[in-house]
């Protein structure tokens, strides 16, 4: 019986138990639901939960351990000369699982291994059958026990709500645990990198050139892992993007929220939000194919030497990408400024712009600052536009007309293609990722702090 079929069977059992539980509650109520502690549907849900949840948990635990238990059983039967050598053992286990899956005809292996493969196939069949039996009976037992517990006075509603609460806790746990998991995977690889390269050199070095020899006989440079040029490039592009996004976003939000007629707003707001829906790749080739050549040609007219991949092109386009982010967040916070404050200001004879400058913006400031900081962390983490438009050369420069490179671009180039995961070159991507993560995390925490501080002051 396949897993899908098993799950369907459990689902069907759950539906049945909902029906039975509800029926029993209705029967107990004697026709008047108010005789029951909870609504009939609560009793149904209660039985269905007791039928389904233990069975599913069992399935989870079963799959967690089935593989390793069966493997241990197989290994214990293999001759010592195979199990003694870890390389041979893993090779043998591979062949065994191939044979068990029925793909082992062309393998030339020891008879013990062939035998073990057949044994594995047998064990797996047995295990699967056992799982079906155990799971279905767990579901049935859950159903029977909870069905018997149904009584007029039983607090099914409270029980159901408690279980629902546990389910929510589990969901938030999954979200948090996966974040922690990501951080740890970054952390371990980064530590691996730092065991090869001195962290001080990485954080404060002024030269970035990660090309190292892959084979011993290759002629290549030593490799230099100073990340400062990357951070300078990232900062430069972020700064340019913010110079575009903050004023344009903020002023368009003010216009939309305070001045525009509702007719214009109905058209313009969605139009602005379309910007947010453009894939970053599209922005990327817009930057590389339209904006960068435009800047280069016009720079030439003005006598400026603009590189065809420049920080300016990438930064400008990234700024455009972030405009809707800034404007819709600031619009939200400004529209939350209570009408009573506006009325108070108008009532004193203030004009619209005085009201905006002296009352609405100060009151909305924490939210606007938060929006800008979130936009900054978005800009720092943005990859596609800079990959396509900013270039790869790790120039240590603050001249926006030259090509620069960013942390994210380097991570992409380091990990694209076939890589071995024990060279400093590849591992440096994880160190960069870790630093990037810490920077954006710091920014977000800072943004929240700013927002909280001002909120205390203004509420």
């Amino acid at each position, binding site marked *: 019986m396949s897993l899908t079929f098993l799950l369907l069977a459990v689902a069907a059992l759950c539906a049945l138990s909902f029906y039975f539980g509800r029926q029993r509650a209705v029967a107990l109520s004697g026709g008047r639901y108010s005789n029951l502690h909870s609504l009939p549907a609560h009793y149904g849900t209660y039985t269905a939960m007791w039928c389904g949840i233990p069975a599913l948990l069992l399935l989870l635990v079963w799959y967690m351990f089935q593989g390793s238990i069966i493997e241990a059983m197989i290994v214990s039967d293999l001759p010592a000369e195979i199990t003694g050598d870890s390389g041979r053992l893993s090779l043998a286990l591979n062949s065994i699982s191939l044979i068990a899956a029925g793909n082992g005809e062309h393998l030339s292996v020891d008879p013990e291994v062939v035998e073990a493969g057949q044994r594995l196939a047998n064990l797996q069949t047995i295990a699967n059958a056992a799982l079906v039996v155990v799971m279905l009976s767990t579901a049935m037992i859950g159903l029977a026990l909870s069905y018997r517990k149904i009584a007029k006075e039983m607090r099914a509603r409270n029980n159901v709500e408690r279980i629902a609460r546990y389910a929510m806790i589990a969901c938030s746990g999954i979200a948090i645990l996966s974040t922690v998991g990501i951080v740890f995977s970054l952390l371990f690889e980064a530590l691996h990198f730092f065991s090869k390269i001195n962290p001080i050199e990485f954080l404060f070095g002024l030269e970035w050139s990660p090309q190292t020899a892959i084979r011993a006989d290759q002629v290549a440079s030593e490799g230099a892992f100073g990340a400062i040029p990357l951070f300078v490039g990232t900062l430069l592009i972020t700064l340019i993007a913010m110079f575009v996004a903050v004023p344009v976003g903020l002023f368009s939000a003010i216009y939309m929220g305070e001045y525009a007629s*509702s007719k214009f707003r109905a058209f313009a707001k969605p139009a602005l939000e379309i910007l947010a829906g453009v894939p970053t790749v599209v922005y990327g080739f817009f930057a590389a194919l339209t904006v960068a050549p435009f800047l280069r040609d016009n720079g030439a007219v003005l006598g400026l030497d603009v590189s065809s991949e420049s920080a300016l092109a990438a930064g400008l386009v990234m700024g455009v990408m972030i405009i809707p982010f800034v404007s819709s967040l600031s619009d939200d916070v400004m529209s939350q400024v*209570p009408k*009573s*404050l*506006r*009325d*108070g*200001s*108008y*009532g*004193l*004879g*203030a*004009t619209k712009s*005085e009201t905006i400058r*002296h*009352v609405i913006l*100060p*009151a909305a400031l924490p939210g606007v600052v938060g929006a800008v900081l979130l936009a900054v962390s978005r800009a720092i983490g943005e990859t596609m536009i800079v990959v396509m438009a900013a270039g790869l050369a790790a120039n240590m420069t603050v001249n926006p007309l030259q090509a620069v490179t960013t942390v994210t671009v380097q991570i992409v180039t380091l990990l694209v293609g076939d890589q071995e995961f024990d060279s400093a070159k590849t591992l440096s991507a994880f160190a960069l990722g870790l630093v990037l993560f810490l920077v954006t995390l710091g920014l977000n925490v800072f943004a929240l702090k700013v927002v909280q501080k001002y909120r205390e*002051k*203004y*509420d």
Partner: protein
Amino acid sequence: MAVVTQSAMTAEPSVTSPKMTARDLNLFYSDNQALFDVNLDIVERQVTALIGPSGCGKSTFLRCMNRMNDTIDGVTINGKVTLDDRDIYDKAIDVVQLRARIGMVFQKPNPFPKSIYDNVAYGPRIHGLVNSRDELDEIVMTSLERAGLLKEVKDRLPEPATGLSGGQQQRLCIARAVAVSPEVILMDEPCSALDPIATAKVEELIDELRSNYTIVIVTHSMQQAARVSQRTAFFHLGKLVEVGETDQIFTNPKDERTKGYITGRFG
């Protein structure tokens, strides 16, 4: 000046040289008519109370008097409202200057998220009423004094106004309105969010302000109208039913609807 009245009930002798008047005022929210031919005179340096059941148009009428309804979409107004015999809906009137002459205090205390000092200084600053910091200090102090708040806040002027209690906040809003030296102060249920003690203080304040300002107050509390006002106007379903001396309205109303409302039979 002949008062054009819609029915005999409102035929109350027009007062001599009123501060503000409304003549045949009609107001529409899109297609709904909210005010019907309202004719009312506001006497200088008196408190005029506007009473009536919820939705009767008294707040709407109040907001016509300093053109606050301009900020709402879809409002059309016809008729005439004058201040010192000049039509305030005239195109030549600058609404900014008009609102500096006619101040407003709202239902819910709405101090700006600024310091106590800056709240009071807001109006004088935007209207350029002062040339020096000393003059500004002077205005802030007098206004707070007039609003009866100075004693309570004089040591905490730089603190945020939002930290004051509800009653103090409302008196701060009154000080803020007074700081622009208006001629008329409109109050839209200024005590509805306050406890009885704070209410008593604000009422006392209104009584004192009467010597310098013309006051129009919307209130749901008939006791309050009786306590603070000299004239009372009763609104019902968008119409001005009756207006007269407060004593007369409360002891000897001419209209059956007024009588019904003040004796608590409806509303």
